[in-house]
């Protein structure tokens, strides 16, 4: 479903992604790990369509379509969802109204009628229960004054509402307390199915105990330098990144 070939991106002349190759098939869960500043958030932002990056090479196809050609809203309507590392606070925009607009825009794109107000509320209630969300959050302005953990949970709740086919989760686990981590992971697992794929960016093996990935990749200096199965995450947890960095340096010399 997602095929990234030799993707290179930079910002203000600074090279950040240096040739990413990644194939994600339907239903797969890919974990991406890597040291701070490696380019993980950049990769997710480029996939979601943030326009501050300049794409200098490569291609990305999503269900056969050229993703990089699409406006961010069209990528979302095609089924891409990004759970932000730093969700944005938007005062004055109610969470409910925002979700209704987002869902109906997607439906319009798919040639469907807008959802009736009552159907929408029912659908939202179901998802609130499924995700074990605090209901009062949906009556507030979008992310405004939410705690760090509440923001992350709201991202996963939005994901449940928008039912993407490709969910990219950028450090959704950071800032969550132990219980919230379990709830969020359970929520994600409930959303897992044969068609829906996940790219999970994380620094911690703990999340991957809950959401067991099919593949683990290490991103370093804008490249995927190592890939493996779930055991790679365990190895990283024990040994850190130095051995990988050393391998990379040795290979480039």
């Amino acid at each position, binding site marked *: 479903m997602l095929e990234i070939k030799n993707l290179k991106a930079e910002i203000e002349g600074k090279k950040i992604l240096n040739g990413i190759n990644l194939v994600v098939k339907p239903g797969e869960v890919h974990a991406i790990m890597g040291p701070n500043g490696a380019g993980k958030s950049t990769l997710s932002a480029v996939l979601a369509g*943030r*326009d501050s990056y300049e794409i200098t090479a490569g291609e990305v196809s999503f269900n056969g379509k050229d993703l990089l050609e699409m406006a*961010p*809203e069209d990528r979302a309507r095609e089924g891409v969802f990004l759970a932000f590392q730093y969700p*944005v606070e938007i005062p004055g*925009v109610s969470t409910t109204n925002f979700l209704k607009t*987002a869902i109906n825009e997607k439906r319009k794109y798919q040639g469907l009628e807008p959802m009736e107000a009552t159907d929408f509320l029912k659908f939202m209630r179901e998802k609130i229960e499924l995700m074990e969300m605090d209901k009062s959050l949906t009556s507030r302005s979008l992310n405004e004054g939410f705690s760090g953990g509440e923001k992350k949970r709201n991202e996963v709740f939005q994901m449940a509402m928008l039912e993407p086919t490709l969910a990219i989760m950028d450090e959704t686990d950071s800032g969550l307390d132990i219980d919230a981590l379990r709830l969020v992971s359970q929520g994600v697992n409930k959303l897992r199915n044969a068609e829906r794929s996940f790219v999970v960016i994380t620094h911690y093996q703990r999340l991957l105990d809950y959401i067991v990935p099919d593949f683990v990749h290490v991103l370093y200096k804008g490249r995927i330098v190592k890939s493996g199965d779930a055991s790679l995450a365990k190895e990283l947890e024990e040994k850190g990144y130095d051995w990988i960095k050393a391998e990379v340096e040795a290979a480039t010399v």
Partner: protein
Amino acid sequence: MSLQEIIKDDFIAYQQQADGNQSFTNIRKQAFHEFERLGFPTTKHEEWKYTSLKSIIEQPFRNSCEINADAVAMAVHSPLMNIDAHHLVFVNGSFIAEASSLKPLAANVIVKNLATARTEHPEQFDAHFGKYAKVEGAAMNALNTALLCDGAFIYVPAKTQIEKPVIIYHITDSTQFQTLSQPRNLIVLEKQASAQVVEVYLSLGANPSFTNVVNEVYADESAQLEHYKIQQQENDAFQNNFTQVFQEANTNINQVTLTLDGNWTRNNLHFYMNGENCNTLLYGLYLTDGHQFVDNHTRVDHAMPNCYSDEKYKGILKDKSTAVFNGKIMVHLDAQKTNAYQRNQNILLSDEATINTKPQLEIFADDVKCTHGATIGQLDKEAMFYLQSRGITEANATKMLLNAFADDIAERIKIPELVAIMEEKIEQKI
């Protein structure tokens, strides 16, 4: 002939047919002499530094009170006409009884046109007319006072409430020629009286028009007023709108000014707190595009202790439009324990739009809390991307963010139809 000379001829003509009310005629005569003495303000005046009347006074406007059926029809078609309210319609300052409609009123409440009120209720009229909007040193007020046509007179006796809103429509009609229209409204609330008043400004006709308005508001002790101004004049409309609110002790005033259209608009909104424990909220939103020019000059005089004022003006500017905000807060020597807040926030949607913002705090008392702040920014890029990344189009995301920006102004408006007009205009302009 210059506009000033045209005005002189108009005044001579007026004098020849002036009626017998000597005191009213004298007020106007004095006002005319004051206007003659001052002439139109120029950019040399501190208060008019960024606001040039030059392009207006070079045009041959004709002072007019004439009525045109199309203009009447226009008022009737305003969506506000559907509100359960008292409706007063004026075209070029002249009262249109057929288009107006009043609901039953409590005893001794007066909702009339000023000209009728002047003869039928001389006591109330003489006690208040011209007492708050001074003409001395104020050329535009003097001009209005000298040659005003008509307008609304609202009088609410003590302990009385006008339950339904009073909506005043002022339509400037310039279909036949370049019209100078001079409406005048007077609102008087006696002790513990309350009212809700909406002023609506519309225009009709392809010729340029110039509307020079004066509003006087008097609120006696413990009176309450909800006061909304919605300016929707079109392409070639110029408007100078002066409002003086005079507050006695314990009064509550909530004022919102929405400037949604019009080629050139200058608003002067002044409050004078003449007693303790007054509460004044003044909020405003201006939406400008094209070559529009909007100037909001406000002045709050804290003359007595323990009063509170909260001011917030927000602007959304597009294209090559220009806005001015000048907020003066005067805390007089005796006005201890004053709380005065002021904010002016602007979103510029284009590089070519200009905002001049200037807070002016003059504080002569020592135990006061005053804050002010101004911001100028663009639409938040992060917020835009966040919304778009959820499938919301750029246009809808922009609309959502601008409505959110305008939200705290909308919250101050208790008539949902006005908020709907505002939001529709935001959508239309972006």
